[in-house]
């Protein structure tokens, strides 16, 4: 699986995005690997391992939510409209 969502349990943006992700999965069949990074150190380290890819496109930091395609390095961070999420999710 190449499409990943990094999120945090107490992050309000992540809470907003989660139902949109579920809608994306339901409508398109595209499944995202979801990694909570505040309460799971393995997931946090995994996100840190992508720092050189994520940070330049996310204000120099490791912000959540981050949506990353590990095959193409195509990524977005923060709250986005459903259409934008869908565009990212269905891009080959």
């Amino acid at each position, binding site marked *: 699986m190449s499409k990943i969502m990094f999120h945090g349990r107490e992050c309000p943006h992540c809470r907003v995005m989660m139902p949109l992700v579920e809608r994306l999965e339901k409508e398109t069949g595209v499944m995202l690997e979801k990694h909570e990074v505040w309460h799971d150190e393995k997931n946090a380290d995994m996100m840190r391992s992508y720092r050189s890819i994520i940070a330049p496109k996310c204000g120099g*930091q490791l912000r959540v939510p981050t949506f990353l395609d590990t095959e193409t390095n195509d990524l977005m961070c923060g709250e986005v409209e459903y259409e934008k999420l869908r565009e990212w999710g269905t891009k080959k």
Partner: protein
Amino acid sequence: MKKYWRCFVCNDIHYGVKPPEVCPTCRAVNAFVEVSSAEAGQVSSPRKTLMDKEGFREAIDSFASRNEFQVNPDREKVDLLLEGIFENEKTCGLKYCPCRLRTKEFEEDLKIVCPCNFLIHETYKGKPEGECWCGLFIRRRS
């Protein structure tokens, strides 16, 4: 490079490149002398103060009242953020932002201790409805 400074009158500790000309606590002039981090810690640590969520809420309200921004009026959102901030303090030692992950580089991670310097962030700077990344602070609505 930042250093520690101690007011020789009232023992205020200042951490910065230069000492304040006037001590903000006792108003003594040119009263700060450079000290070691160990001395700064010794002088300030016996008077540790605890701050719970309500105390932090009051502190950021007071901080915001002196600035162009305010604490988000969305109480539910703020409660969730404070939960994350205090969880981070408990597990990681400082009130790190619950919407940005620590890199594990101490100096870098100081940039995400709440309140961070969000005035320079693209989510706030130049935006009439700007807010910090997590949404705890928003530009004051007129």
